[in-house]
């Protein structure tokens, strides 16, 4: 981590890959579903990136990492509890409603695949903007901190990406 703080990108990438399974194990104590664990683990990776200046190389790395993973895991558990309390989940509602939207579940899945393919074809900067701002739901400032691009540049990339996606999906 000390080398990553000094800007050694290869060491940083190796470290993130090595700690990813450990983060998943810590997160799995609070979350059950595999996709949920992966989501939280990704959030922990982003947090580590954001506060990597707080690591003191004179101290052990494990407790620093474990504290961040535990903290984020519990935060997201709480946030999920709050959003679950406000949402109603009714599996049968799709089948009981008579409106045409009831059959859209399958169609939506196909559309999601098409969208993922369309995003993959975007130029690097635009794809990054869509992934960080829309798929990861980061703020402009967080995305700017990760990519090193200015907020203005991210907005422009996002705008162009949306135009390109709209044109492509309409053409399908």
């Amino acid at each position, binding site marked *: 981590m000390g080398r*990553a*703080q*000094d*800007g050694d*990108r*290869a060491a*940083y*990438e190796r470290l*993130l*890959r090595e700690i*990813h399974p450990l983060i998943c194990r810590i997160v799995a104590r609070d979350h059950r579903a*595999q*996709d949920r664990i*992966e989501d939280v*683990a*990704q959030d922990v*990776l*982003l*947090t580590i*990136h*954001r*506060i*990597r*200046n*707080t*690591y*003191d*190389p004179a*101290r052990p790395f494990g*407790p*620093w990492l474990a*504290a*961040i993973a535990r*903290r*984020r895991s519990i*935060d997201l558990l709480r946030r999920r509890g709050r959003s679950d309390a406000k949402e109603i989940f009714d599996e049968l509602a799709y089948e009981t409603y008579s409106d045409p939207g009831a059959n859209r579940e399958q169609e939506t899945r196909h559309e999601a695949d098409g969208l*993922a393919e369309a995003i*993959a074809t975007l130029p690097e900067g635009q794809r*990054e903007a869509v*992934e*960080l701002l829309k798929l*990861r739901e980061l703020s402009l400032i967080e995305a700017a901190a*990760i*990519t*090193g691009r200015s907020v203005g540049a991210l907005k422009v990339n996002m705008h162009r990406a949306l135009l390109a996606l709209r044109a492509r999906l309409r053409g399908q």
Partner: protein
Amino acid sequence: MSMALDTDRLIATLAAHAKPVRRLRPPMMRSALWLLLVAAIAGTAILFLANWGMVDRRMSDPKLQLEMAGTLLTGIAAIIAAFHLSLPDRSSAWALLPLPPFVLWVASSSYSCWKTWIVQGPEGWSWGHTAECFNFIVGVSVPLGLCLAYALSRAKPLAPIPVAATGGLGVAALGAVILQFFHPFDVTFLDLAAHLAAVGVVVLVSSGVGRISRV
């Protein structure tokens, strides 16, 4: 896009944008630097603005010395605790550090209030300069609090509420120390209540700010 691929791409993106970062200095050193800065500014203000005749007379009172020691130690301990709590891997037990001096502060102030009450009778319950005390502590805490919030925000605390609460206690206690140099009378119960209410308001407001700033 599979999940593993998603994480894979995220790691690659993070690594590709990993610029060198400036490590934070140890929290003890950061809190010492911050306290020195405040001591220099407050010291200069006190040197030029305090009524030294009154200060000399009041400071010779051992009760007031004890009260001042309790208040000052509460401020210092709370600031040290806030700098430690702002880091992810420090124990949350740091939040308890300001508790013993806080007890000393309240106990010694209450004792001197009680003495004032005994000596002065109903005057001991008078409003004194309660509103000024309240405004002074809150007024001093705001600039100190903003300056502290900037220093603490460099750690981007994951649990900002305890950091903001201890930081708020620290700046309010330091405000109460500075107040003693401009406080030409012994505290009455209502003065003490004003001091503690001001501390409470600062702690509550800073905790509220901490809650909003939570990621």
